[in-house]
């Protein structure tokens, strides 16, 4: 009797812990959405309403109607998409060389990119500010785009290099035997096979660029040239303690990334992990 009880407990505790942990990790995200949809009366309640029954779009309306919201959405989308696309193009060339060719200095280049991706951009903003100011490009999206591009470039190169290396060389070779040039073989054979890798790689680039905060904070004082992270971080101050609207704003900011992540996460992570643990 006693034996079965203890083995039941032994089987139970991992599941019980998992449920507690699920709540701990998911709750802040749930609370953001829950607050965003709750009527104000439920938000400023002495006892929090954990499972709201009434939904309202009033907070979202307030967030969307905030000054410059759509300008900032446009800025964020432009900067993010352009910087990721640029870095993908540049990285594709570099990763092909690093994965498929053997040449003097190859190892040095790889190490350079590995070190470069650890660059402490957060601490370099003062120098970047001076450079951008001296080029008279403050309050412009151009410096943001190119700096974000370089920010995600090393990671993109190193990850794509893994994906290029994973495409069997025989495919490329047989295409070349069939009369393709190396460039044609790349475009016709490798590139289509790389598509999932490109998507997974770009996910992390999107997240980095979408979230970047310190650089835009110092470079673009003009609201017309800012991006959503700045808007969101000052939202609460601007709107007093309107938590409903603040959480609606946070939800709007988070949703594109959450959707991308949930769709691409499996692929991206397995790509990372395949590299990380294959000894």
């Amino acid at each position, binding site marked *: 009797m006693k034996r079965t009880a203890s083995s039941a407990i032994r089987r139970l505790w991992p599941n019980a812990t*998992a449920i507690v942990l699920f709540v701990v990790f998911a709750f802040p995200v749930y609370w953001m959405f829950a607050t965003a949809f709750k009527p104000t009366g439920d938000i400023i309640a002495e006892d929090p309403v954990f499972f709201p029954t009434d939904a309202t779009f009033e907070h979202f309306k307030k967030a969307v109607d905030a000054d410059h919201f759509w300008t900032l959405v446009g800025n964020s989308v432009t900067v993010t998409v352009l910087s990721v696309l640029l870095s993908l193009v540049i990285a594709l060339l570099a990763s092909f060389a690093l994965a498929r060719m053997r040449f003097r200095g190859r190892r040095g280049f790889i190490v350079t990119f590995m070190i470069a991706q650890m660059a402490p951009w*957060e601490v*370099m903003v003062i120098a970047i500010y001076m450079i951008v100011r001296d080029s008279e490009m403050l309050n412009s999206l151009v410096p943001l785009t190119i700096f974000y591009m370089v920010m995600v470039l090393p*990671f993109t190169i190193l990850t794509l290099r893994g994906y290029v290396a994973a495409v069997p060389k025989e495919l490329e070779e047989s295409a070349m035997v069939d009369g393709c040039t190396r460039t044609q073989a790349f475009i016709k054979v490798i590139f289509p096979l790389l598509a999932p890798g490109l998507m997974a790689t770009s996910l992390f680039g999107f997240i980095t660029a979408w979230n970047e905060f310190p650089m835009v904070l110092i470079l673009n004082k003009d609201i017309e040239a800012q991006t959503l992270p700045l808007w969101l971080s000052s939202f609460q101050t601007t709107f007093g303690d309107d938590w409903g609207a603040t959480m609606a704003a946070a939800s709007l900011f988070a949703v594109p990334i959450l959707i991308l992540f949930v769709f691409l996460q499996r692929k991206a992570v397995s790509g*990372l992990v395949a590299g990380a643990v294959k000894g």
Partner: protein
Amino acid sequence: MSVQTERADTAAAAGIRKSDASPPGVGRDGENRGKSRGGAAVPYLLLLPALAATAVLLGWPLVKNGMLSFQNLNPRQLILHLTEWNGIDNYKEVLTGSDFWKVVGRSLVFTAVNVVLTMLLGTLIGLLLARLGKRMRLTLMLGLVLAWAMPVVAATTVYQWLFAQRFGVVNWVLDKLGWHSMADYNWFGSQLSTFSVVTLLIVWGSIPFVAINLYAATTTIPKELYEAAALDGAGAWQSFTSVTFPFLRPFLWSTTFLEVIWIFKAFTQVFAMNAGGPDRLTETLPVYAFVEGVGNQHFGMGAAISFLTILILLALTAYYLRTVLKQEEDEL
């Protein structure tokens, strides 16, 4: 989540390096053929855009930062575009003042606490994932992925709301649990409580990366190793110390350093949470450099602090960087 991604970045790179060791032999001939067809300059031409972009946009700010740190650059010089060199005055002022060293100590403790908590809890949760049945594992994974994907600025505002003095859910729970003095507690009124919230935010956001990747790593441990250990009479703990842990050690080692880098330079969480307050008591080095340099418009001083911050970061991770360099030599 800029931070989050960076974490992911670095780990991926740490890994990818190894993956290309796996398809050996076959390719060598193809490579040579390609080289002779394409000409020796091709790989360099392919790398040129990436190298040029990195050199200009990463290298130049670093050099510029070094130069600025030897200049007297306050609003007057800034507006009039004056370059006034002042030797090592900035460094003298920073290093002899007591503020800087206080911030250094604070940053080191902050980093240590966050990294230890992240690695410890992340490892435990990763091992738990390996023990769970399929359905529970997917459930917990979903929670972890949500926290992982949550953009940093959004997460910061959510934590401000969770810990809000009025109507914040955390104070309500603490009050209901019998800790009535917390009913109207102001979390952002003191150094320790502000740091607690920031730490919770960072650890919450960092654990998923460690846990999910660690779980993935445990799935690659060959079952025969456990069978062999069991035949030798190893219990659960012994098979952990003799099989699981040695297998995971390289992963844990590199992840710890990546977390050190990531947390030491964390800016957004600290700054967006409470702007380094109250009374500048929660400024870590990156925030301190920003507030001194940009906020107080002592750009030269700020640059000197930035430079010293980078040096400290290099010193903290020197051992890891060295193994990165060495591994590259061994494997390529």
